[in-house]
Every structure is written in C-alpha cells, then in structure tokens.
C-alpha cells in the first residue's frame, strides 16, 4: 500500500506548490520575434546588473504578443508586449474591453529591412521599390495596360538586373516586418510604376487600389515565410536565385553567406537608416501595462534600463547588435520615467 501513500503525498505536494504560486517576481515579456534578440540582450544585462531576476522574454509575433497583452490585468498576464509595429486602434479597444487601460508606448529604436541574396548567386546589388513591385505584384502595368504579371526573369522589366528567375522569400502576414515591406516597398513601387494611377483610372476606389497594390502574386514566385530569418536564410541557401527579406542585424551577422542589395541607391547600414536615407526601416516598440508598474518588482527599472543611453544609445550593446538608435531617445526616457500613458 506504500505505493498509494506515495502517490497521495505526491499529489499533495503538487497541490501545495500550485497554491503558493501566486507571487511572480520576474518581468514577463512576449511579442515580436524581431524585437526578441534585442529584448534578450537587455534582459540578460538587466539580470546581470540589477538584483531583480532575469526577465522572461517570449516571442511569437507582434500580433500574438499584443493579443496576450490585452488579455487582462493580473499576474498571470504579461507585463510588456514587444512589437515591430505600432499598436492598432482595434487592439487598444480590445485592451480597454479587458481592463487594460494604462498603456505606455515606448519606441526604443529602428530596425532596417534589407534585401539580400546568396553570396554566390546572381548579382542582385541594386533595387528600386518599382523592381520589387514588378517582380511580385499579381497585376502590373505593361505599356500602359494593367495585365497579369507576365514577368519570370528580373531582367524582363529592368535590363540592369541579372537574368535570373524571380523568386522572393518575404515575411508572412503575421510578422510586423510584412507591414513595413508592404508600405515602404510594395506600395512605393506601385506608385512609382504608375500601376496605382492606372488602377484608379480603371474605376477602382482609392482603398481598393491601395489593397490591390499590396497583393503579391500567388504563382509560387513569392513565398511567404512564417518562421524567422533562419528559415529565410535556409531557403536562400538552397535557391541561388532567391531574394530574401532580412533584418539588418541578421544580415550583419551572416555577411559570409549573404550579399545585400541597395535600395534606391542607398546601402543599408546603421548610419543611413538613422538618417532616413535608406528608405526601408521601421520603428520598434514595447508596450508596458501601467497597472502592473507598482505590482511587478523590477518592471519600471527594466523599462528605464531598456531605453537608457547605456543600452539603447548609439554606443550601447543594442546598436552593436544592429539596432538603429532613436535620435529622440531622450524624450522617450523622460516619458518612461514619468509613466506617461497613451492617450
């Protein structure tokens, strides 16, 4: 019968430990997989430099992180959501409906988005947004007519580009990067090629034309990558003609495997992104749950530490990893210190 006694006491121990599990002493973060590397650097340094335990940072995408953020207030919800895009009004409403009202929005820097290809592949060294649009849109403008995309080679529409099959690996729709890619490259290319005007002229409403601009072809030449950059890298490794979308930091860590293309004649690096010369970059955010500030030990210290000059400044470890420092970091620091919530 000792077997029964043993299992009964085991159950009891488990129950007791579950009962006492109500005082969380660590900061809990979730969200964008683009922000995760930066957040892990900050979390490690925070654990090393403060007496608080190292925060826990999960990934899963901006939208998934914000959805968890908006689940409610309490120790079994997260304190901070990382996002590679700004929170949407719909998400703020969702938050408010669940009692998450005091949200502090913190922009801590910028991330450049680069187009890179296999180092031994064709010479993709210069792109314009129009090239990307012509390669990836389902309908393009050919001789003033909107037609289904006939192009199979990059050289079909731009003789300066190499004679290589079109194959692009772009971030999937759950990634914040996709939105930046659409807005700053595809939409820009749509306007630059005149396709947008042609769509408007063909009787589409402005909204419909904008949506049509952002569509990508579905014949297999554009591949959505729902995983992270390592998956894109693996695809590029296997396809010499492939072009992939990466974050600047990821590219800089893999310069021995990838070669980067300029966009509108500007090479991506931290200087050109900070100055705004390189056109494709996006702000990175994290959102703090105001109601948790006085409850979770170390939450405010973590936020202040994250945006401090020593971390997110131009000489800090985040910049060293590839973050483009925010020129307005000073006002962000003041905002976090004053716990200014979003209006």
């Amino acid at each position: 019968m000792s077997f029964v006694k043993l299992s009964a006491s085991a159950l009891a121990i488990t129950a007791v430990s579950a009962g006492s599990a109500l005082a969380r002493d660590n900061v809990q973060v979730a969200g964008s997989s683009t922000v995760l590397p930066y957040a892990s650097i900050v979390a490690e340094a925070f654990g090393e430099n403060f007496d608080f335990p190292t925060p826990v940072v999960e990934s899963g995408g901006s939208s998934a992180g914000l959805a968890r953020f908006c689940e409610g207030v309490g120790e079994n919800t997260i304190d901070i959501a990382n996002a590679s895009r700004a929170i949407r009004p719909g998400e703020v409403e969702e938050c408010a409906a669940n009692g998450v009202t005091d949200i502090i929005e913190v922009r801590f820097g910028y991330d450049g988005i680069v187009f890179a290809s296999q180092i031994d592949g064709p010479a993709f060294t210069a792109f314009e947004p129009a090239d990307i649009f012509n390669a990836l849109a389902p309908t393009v403008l050919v001789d003033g007519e909107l037609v289904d995309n006939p192009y199979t080679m990059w050289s079909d529409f731009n003789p300066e580009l190499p004679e290589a099959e079109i194959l692009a690996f772009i971030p999937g729709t759950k990634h914040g990067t996709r939105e930046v890619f659409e807005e700053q490259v595809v939409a820009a290319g749509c306007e630059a090629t005149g396709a947008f005007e042609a769509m408007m002229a063909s009787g589409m409403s402005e909204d419909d034309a904008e949506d049509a601009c952002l569509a990508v072809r579905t014949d297999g030449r554009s591949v959505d990558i729902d995983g992270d950059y390592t998956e894109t890298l693996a695809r590029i490794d296997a396809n010499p003609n492939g072009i992939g979308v990466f974050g600047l930091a990821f590219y800089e860590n893999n310069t021995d495997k990838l070669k980067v293309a300029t966009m509108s004649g500007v090479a991506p690096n931290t200087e050109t992104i900070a100055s705004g010369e390189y056109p494709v970059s996006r702000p990175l955010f994290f959102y703090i749950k105001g109601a948790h500030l006085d409850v979770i030990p170390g939450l405010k210290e973590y936020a202040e530490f994250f945006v401090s000059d020593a971390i997110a400044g131009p000489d800090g470890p985040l910049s060293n990893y590839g973050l483009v420092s925010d020129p307005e970091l000073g006002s962000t620091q003041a905002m976090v210190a004053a716990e200014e919530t979003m209006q």
Partner: protein
Amino acid sequence: MTDAATDGLAAAPGKKKRSSLLELDARTKRRNAAEARFKAYGIIAITAGLCFLVGLVWAILSNGLPAFQQAVVKLDYTMTQEQFDEAEAAVLKTAVYTDQFVAYFSDRVREQGIEAEFDADTIERLLGKVGGTIRAFYRENPDHIGQPVAFELSAASRVDRYLKGTFDRGDVSGEGNRFFVPSDFDLVDTLQEAGFIAQVFNWNFITGVDSGVDNAGGAGIGASVLGSFLMMIVVLLLALPIGVAASIYLEEFAPKNWFTDFIEVNISNLAAVPSIVFGILGLAVFIQFAGMPQSAPLVGGLVLTLMTLPTIIISTRASLKSVPPSIRDAALGVGASKMQAVFHHVLPLAAPGILTGTIIGLAQALGETAPLLLIGMVGFIARYPDSFLGGFEGPNSAMPAQIYNWASRSDVVFTEKAWGGIIILLIFLVSMNLIAILLRRRFERRW
C-alpha cells in the same frame, strides 16, 4: 530402381509429376525465389534504416561536439577596491567591468612584449561578454578583491569559430566589420601562442543558463535540463498513479457495458490527439482559469501529463491483460479478495510492462515542444530557480524549447549549441530507455 521410377514417370505423361527432394520443381523455385526476394527487401530496408541512423548520428555528433569546446581568454586578473566601487556606481555596471578587464588585459599583453598593434576596441572585439561573469564572481567572493584570480572568460563567437576552423580569413571581406577585421586573425594567432587564448572544455554549456543573442559564448543548457527534469517529475508523480489506477479499475473491476466501452474508445482517441491541442487546453484551463503561473514547469508537467496519460493507460492495460488468468484464479481460490489478488499478485507481475510504458511515455513527453510554446516555456528564460520546490512554479525552459530557440538565432555559434543540446537531450532519452530495458530484464517473468 531409380531408372524404373523415371521410366514410370515418362510412361505416364498424363499423371501429375512427382516431385523430388533433390530437384526442385518450378513452383517451389518460385516460392523460394519469393522468399529470397523478401529477405533481400528486408535487408535493404534495414540497411537503409541503418544508413539514415548513421547519417543522423554523424550529423549530430559532427555539428554538436564542437559546442562542448570553447575558446577562452586566460588571465590572472586583479581587481582593486576602487575599481569595484567605480563599477558598482555605474548604470551599466558590466560595461565598466569589461572596460577595466580590457585595460588590464592589454597591459599584460604588452608586458609580454607582443609585437602587435591593437587598442582597447580590438581587445573588446575578441572578448565575449565578460562583464557579467566578472561581476557575478566578485559579488559572490568580495574577499578576492585586490588578489589575483585566475579567470577563464569566453572569447568572442568569431574567435571561437576561428579556433574551431569554421570561420577563416576568407569569411571577412575587405575592411571587415564591427565584429571582426582581417588583422584580428593575426592577433588571435599571436595571443594563442602566448597562451592568452586557448580552447577548453565548455563546462558552462552543461551547467549554464541561456544568454542574450550577442553572448553566444555564455549560453548553457543547464537550466533547461533542470526544467525538463522538473516537468518529468510532475508527469511521473501524476501520470503514473492516475494512469495505473485508471487501468486497474477498467481492466479488473469495471463492469463491461457501453459506458466503459465508450471510455475505452476515448482513451484510444486521446492518445492520437496532437500535442498542441493539450497546449491550448493548458493555457485556457491551468493558466487563464486556474491562475497558475506562466512559463512554469508545473504547468508544463500538467500539460504533458494529459498527453502521457493515454500512453500509460493503454500500456498498463495491455500488461495487466497479459498476466495469465490462472494467477488471479489461484489467488481468489485460496481466499484472497479481488483487491488482494490484483495488488498482491497481478500488479507485481504486470509491473515491468507498466514501467516500460511509463518510461516510453515520459521519453515522448521529454521531446515535446509544441504544447510548451503556448504556456510560455519557449523564449528567453535565463535563470535557475531559487529553490527546488520554487523551481516548479518559477519560470523555466525545457530542453527541446531551448534547442528550438537557439536554432533560430542569427549567430552560427548558437546553431552549434542547438546541435550540442540535441546530444544532451539524446543522452537523456537513451538513459531513460536504458532504465526501461534494465527494469524489464530485472522483473520480467516468462510463462
């Protein structure tokens, strides 16, 4: 005699041919050929399987073994009280510790009369993130301040790769970048000759915790091994008693009616449910409804218990069934109650099968990542729990989650660590299976 028989056969053409043991007829030949073919297919299948296995093991070992080696910077370092106070007063204390170490290291290298051009930035490029290690050491051992301490601190990930031969001069183009410039290779060579840089066994990989993406040298799998271990304890303590009790009742006591049939079918169905479903269930029930902590091995263990239960119940019932009814009858015949018959006679005989099933269930649970994704155990979780019991409810990762995490990082050294993590995970699995085999050998009864 033989002739006569042959003549007889030839004389009667209409009669069925008599078969000879020495000479095979066409049909037997066909059957034998079919058998030979089937054997050949079997051998081919096994050979192919073995080839895959060899390939897999070779890939794992060749990619993973380097993770157990690490390039380190060796130095007898002395820190003064003033330096300690200065560092502790800063915001980013570890950066000050690093700067102080870099300055000291540069001086020692110059003292050795090494003819190479370098500055503080060069040295910092070659070092890993050393500040955290130094600070942790002096905070724990304040009496060592002012005395020389022999440090072995991790070198930068590119230095590590250079010493392992996966990164060489061809990989740095032109001027280089902020991580490495071509002249660094010469300096590394010189420092290695002078004994400042060396390759050592990477204990930190086995005992350490996860590290930030810019600190590939500091990452270890220790904390997640502990996380997996704690989860397995929860699974064992919950799934074994519940599973065994349920199967004993179903097998020995329950009446056979439509309701128990219904339960039986559902247990079999449950065994086939994808594990991610249990993850969603765990998130909804244990975390959101019951208010249990996120990222905790306790919740992970509960989720994996749900996943393991059907496996244990099915294997336990099978081993209870395999105990011959004569044992039960004999026990009942000498006056034992039903419960005594089951617990004193049937259960001990079924134990080896139950244990095997349990360990296989545990091994399956050990490798599970998907459900952990939803309850927050996949991510950057870099800490050891404060106490053993606290470990169940505090955040922790698990081995497969940690491996998955490392595999998606941009620095190649993390990929190597992911392979190294697979080796450790496999060692765990193989030893669990070994225990299962030993237990079966020890307790097995043949009828």
